[in-house]
């Protein structure tokens, strides 16, 4: 919402400075987004008279002027304007001035060999208009030497953000009212003399859609002269950022901007028969004033006559019946439209307008007659003509909120004690009717007020939010209690464990290109209706694709070694259409695990065991029983089929998958070289019993030393080593505390199709040391357990 200081002063009697007004606007919730001060823009430009004009010796189209600036010697100025001539009074930009239209700083310079000490300006150069055919011509009596800003009238313009609850402040008068309540001056009463109708309104006006258009008031003014608006009106509209069109159109806009009251003027000659508000009919269209044709539906309210639709009600007028310079008779429309209907129609048509933004927020239903009278008076003054009687169809919803208010709420809700008398003054100044018993009736222009908290807001914002003092929140006794849930603690712990293992945490988009999401999805991923781009369209069903894309970007930038992880949600579909978001950790290892080194030789790429190491270490930190996990297949088609696996707790619960990326997947992500990945399904980790707190089971270190024994088995080459290790470890649960595989050998001495696996078994004696018989018994158990898998102890 933009308006000039002089416009504000039409409604507000004030001596306040621009800075004071701006501060007050901010303080009462009308946020100042900018103040444009034309005086600053026009600094360095002066009223000046051309004394002589002579042809430029070196250029046909230029002249050399001597210009009187009102002080000192006349200046020599080179000028290309055809209208430059001796005697002309215009505007001279002096060296150092900045030309508003292009930001060029003027300086003394030679133009085609002739020194020029400034520039005579056109209206476009000063951003005062579009004219660039010649330089500005001021009246001959304009005071030479005066700063042009002073002569032209420097009217500062405020740009204020209006929150959606304040349709009243979408008119300058409403802003003036708020400022007056805040003590910035006195609100002037509306200057209005109702025009007496001199003839009955010749048009039948009605509303056939009392829901969408509860009230439709109108009148005809005949014998008007339309044309360009007078300068004062043009200036006003320009200050508000509007383009002047013609007096009739400009005046309806002036009433809208000044009082927040949209209205419409129809060229009566273009109308046929009765004019009514009604629902649009299937298939009807309207060519709106923006030149676009809109297809209407029966959910929309329109203004129509016998011939058809003339106006998308409350949003935009139609091209056909708009006023033009030839208009002599007008029908004025002032209506009340249902805010929800306007909003729905505007959204459906994707059409915004100044009228819509006011109607959908709610205009004052009590202001129809007043608005019409203001508009009538302005038209009669500006365009002449005579007005008909007013016709009123329907009845606007006049009832406003009545609130049983308690002034004590200012303190108990607003946090600041405000004297009751002051609260009464503030509410009254804002237009509320305050009864003796504090029954408060809202004015028609405040549709946002519904209850006591709204009134607290009113009194506190005018009294000053700065006056609210800080009050400590009551604090629970004792030491602060833990506030994180086990899942949150787990997430924090695993994150820092991953970082401690040398992984860099990334945060990548939740949404992906559809094909990348589909490549990692098990069911149908969530796909947006209105994505910002095709690259950000489907919600990730896995953390890997986002990390792989990040890996590609890093490798493209020349990264030699990459260790990325992310903790976040993967998005699945839950029961009955809800979202199922699960905490997940993804790891991507790409490039070199170790670079070439003086001690280690050639660079080594990451392999599947690196991914396994990360998966197991992080699962352990997350509290998963890693010793009980089984390594099984089926990591997914995105993985190398021979170098990937899942980690499972029992056959069904998958806690993680890891391995090398399938070359096809790598190619799809433009990744070259081996890439190891792991994905941990943190949500699947069973909660540890007794995980809260730091309690530990009792423990006493064994008194006797452990004993180690090595076993080497021959086993078919396709049998998983992990199965044998598990079998060995489980062979004697009392004595065997660990079994560690330390050699996997094939070749000389090992039959074809077999491999030799060597396992170091650690035995822990409890109450007495082992004798030969005891060791033999354990060895037999180990051998027997291995035999079940087809493993034979090597001789």
């Amino acid at each position, binding site marked *: 919402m933009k308006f000039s200081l002089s416009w504000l002063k039409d409604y507000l009697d004030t001596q306040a400075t621009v800075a004071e007004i701006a501060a007050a606007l901010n*303080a009462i*919730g009308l946020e100042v987004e900018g103040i444009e001060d034309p005086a600053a823009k026009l600094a360095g430009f002066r009223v000046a008279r051309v004394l002589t004009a002579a042809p430029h010796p070196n250029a046909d189209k230029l002249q050399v002027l001597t210009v009187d600036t009102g002080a000192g010697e006349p200046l020599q100025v080179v000028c290309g304007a055809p209208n430059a001539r001796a005697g002309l009074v215009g505007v001279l930009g002096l060296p150092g001035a900045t030309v508003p239209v292009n930001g060029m700083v003027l300086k003394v310079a030679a133009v085609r060999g002739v020194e020029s000490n400034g520039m005579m300006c056109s209206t476009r150069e000063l951003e005062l208009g579009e004219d660039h055919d010649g330089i500005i011509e001021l009246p001959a009596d304009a005071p030479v030497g005066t700063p042009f800003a002073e002569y032209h009238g420097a009217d500062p313009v405020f740009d204020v953000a209006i*929150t*959606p*609850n304040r349709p009243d402040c979408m008119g300058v008068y409403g802003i003036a009212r708020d400022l007056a309540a805040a003590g910035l001056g006195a609100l002037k009463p509306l200057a209005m003399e109702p025009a007496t109708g001199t003839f009955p309104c010749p048009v039948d006006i009605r509303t056939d859609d009392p829901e969408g258009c509860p009230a439709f008031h109108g009148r005809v003014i005949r014998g008007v002269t339309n044309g360009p608006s007078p300068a004062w009106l043009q200036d006003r509209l320009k200050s508000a950022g509007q383009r002047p069109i013609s007096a009739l159109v400009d005046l309806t806009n002036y009433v809208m901007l000044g009082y927040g009251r949209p209205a419409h003027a129809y060229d009566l000659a273009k109308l046929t028969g009765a004019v009514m508000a009604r629902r649009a009919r299937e298939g009807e269209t309207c060519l709106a004033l923006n030149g676009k044709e809109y297809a209407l539906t029966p959910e929309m309210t329109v203004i129509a006559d016998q011939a058809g639709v003339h106006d998308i009600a409350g949003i935009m007028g139609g091209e056909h019946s708009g006023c033009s310079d030839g208009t002599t008779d007008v029908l004025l429309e002032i209506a009340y439209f249902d*805010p929800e209907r306007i*909003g729905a129609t505007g*959204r459906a048509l994707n059409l915004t307008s100044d009228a819509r933004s006011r109607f*959908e927020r709610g205009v004052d239903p009590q202001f129809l007659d007043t608005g019409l009278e203001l508009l009538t008076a302005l038209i009669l003054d500006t365009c002449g003509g005579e007005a008909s009687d007013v016709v009123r169809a329907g009845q606007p919803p006049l009832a406003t909120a009545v609130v049983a208010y308690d002034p004590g709420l200012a*303190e108990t*809700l*607003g*946090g*600041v004690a405000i004297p009751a008398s002051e609260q009464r003054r503030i509410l009254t100044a804002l237009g509320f009717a305050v009864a003796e018993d504090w029954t408060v009736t809202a004015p028609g222009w405040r549709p946002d007020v519904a209850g006591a*908290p709204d009134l*607290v*807001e009113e009194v*506190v*914002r005018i009294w000053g*939010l700065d006056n*609210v*003092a800080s*009050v*400590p929140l*009551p*604090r*629970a006794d004792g030491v602060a209690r*833990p*506030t*994180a849930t086990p899942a*949150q603690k787990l997430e*924090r712990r695993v*994150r*820092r464990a*991953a*970082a*401690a293992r*040398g992984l*860099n*945490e*990334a*945060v990548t*988009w*939740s*949404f992906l290109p559809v094909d990348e999401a589909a490549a990692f999805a098990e069911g149908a991923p969530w796909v*947006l*209706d209105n994505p*910002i781009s095709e690259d950000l369209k489907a*919600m990730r069903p896995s953390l890997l694709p986002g*990390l792989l894309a*990040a890996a590609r970007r*890093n490798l493209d930038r020349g*990264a030699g070694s990459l*260790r*990325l992880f992310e903790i976040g*949600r993967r998005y699945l579909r839950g029961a009955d*259409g809800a*979202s199922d*978001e699960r905490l997940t950790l993804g790891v991507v290892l790409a490039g070199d695990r170790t670079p070439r*080194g003086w001690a280690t030789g050639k660079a080594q790429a990451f392999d599947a065991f690196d991914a396994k190491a990360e998966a197991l270490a992080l699962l352990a930190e997350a509290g998963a029983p890693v010793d009980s996990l089984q390594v099984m297949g089926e990591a997914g088609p995105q993985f190398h089929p021979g170098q990937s696996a899942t980690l499972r707790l029992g056959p069904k619960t998958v806690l993680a998958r890891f391995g090398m990326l399938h070359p096809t997947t790598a190619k799809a992500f433009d990744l070259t070289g081996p890439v190891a990945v792991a994905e941990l399904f943190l949500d699947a980790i069973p909660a540890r019993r007794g995980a809260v707190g730091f309690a530990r089971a009792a423990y006493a270190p064994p008194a006797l030393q452990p004993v180690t024994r090595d076993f080497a088995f021959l086993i078919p080459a396709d049998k998983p080593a992990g199965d044998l290790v598990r079998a060995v470890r489980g062979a004697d649960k009392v004595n065997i505390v660990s079994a560690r595989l330390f050699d996997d050998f094939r070749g000389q001495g090992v039959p074809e199709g077999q491999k030799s696996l060597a396992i170091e078994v650690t035995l822990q004696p409890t109450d007495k040391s082992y004798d030969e018989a005891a060791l033999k018994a354990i060895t037999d158990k180990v051998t027997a357990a291995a035999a079940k898998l087809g493993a034979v102890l090597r001789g």
Partner: protein
Amino acid sequence: MGTFVDYAATGQAALAEIAAAEDLDTIEQLRVAFLGKQGSISGLLKTLGAMSPEQRQSEGPQIHALRERVTTALAERKAALESAALEARLAAETVDLTLPAPEAPRGSVHPVSQVMDELAEIFADLGFAVATGPEIEDDWHNFTALNMPESHPARAMHDTFYFPDASPAGGKMLLRTHTSPVQIRSMLQHGAPLRIIAPGRVYRSDSDATHTPMFHQVEGIVIDKGIHLGHLKWTLETFLKAFFERDDIVLRLRPSYFPFTEPSVEVDVGFALVTGPDGRTRRALGGHGDDPGHGWMELLGSGMVNRKVIAFGGLDPDEWQGFAFGIGVDRLAMLKYGMDDLRAFFDGDQRWLSHYGFSALDVPTLSGGVGTPA
């Protein structure tokens, strides 16, 4: 009978031989030669038995002294040779320790995670638990229950991402535009009194240097009896002072409008324009915004929870009231740690992550200070 033995000369000769020994083998040979069972000095000792008591009296000490001298010399020479051998071995084992040691990769925690941990820590001290909710929300939780009915103009201001899918309740599924739905879910789940913060990802259909379609927000809500704007102001002041680790944080409250709060308050914070050694000027929070060289920046939106929202949360607005606020986590991180491009947060550039990330051990704690010095 008397065989004169010159013990002194024998000793001199033995000591000379010992001193000349160059290795441990020679020392051993000499030991055997002098002190072994058949050794020359051992032989002398054996002669004592055949001596007369007088002779033994005079010869005995000399022989014993000789043996003592030789034994000591052998031990000393042996120790010297061993020491020399050790030194030689160690000298041979010398390595160039300016060669690089094996490198361990340095991991890092993303600034957004770090800031969220800081927030959780600060608010834990104020009694706020951390709550979460789904990011794929339904329009009831994201809008309707927050007093934004279908026709509300504020809905359009939210640049919402929608899904074609219907919600379980028959509404639309969407990406939450703010963390505020967690207010509703927490009230419905936990009732009152309630003190929570809800950090997480939020989404708006918006993209430029300062806006990304995904960003992070933290919501705070207190529902209790007798809670008013003064408590809100104190809570925000306390939180911001703790977070930015400065006592001179000054807030400016401005009336504003949010459908879910009434009264609604926009909060500005004062900053100073500081020019660094690189000549770049940046905003450093602190100080009064109206002071010379200072200004105000909009930081967050807040207010007293709208009665309708409390009722949608299943609570009686005549009994309970409270405040809520929402603030951008990425923005907080940028203001505290100085990043200037939001888009870089989500790129996964390892160089950026290493530079702006945090060590795993920089766990924010109240006792250690929630911030991490650069």
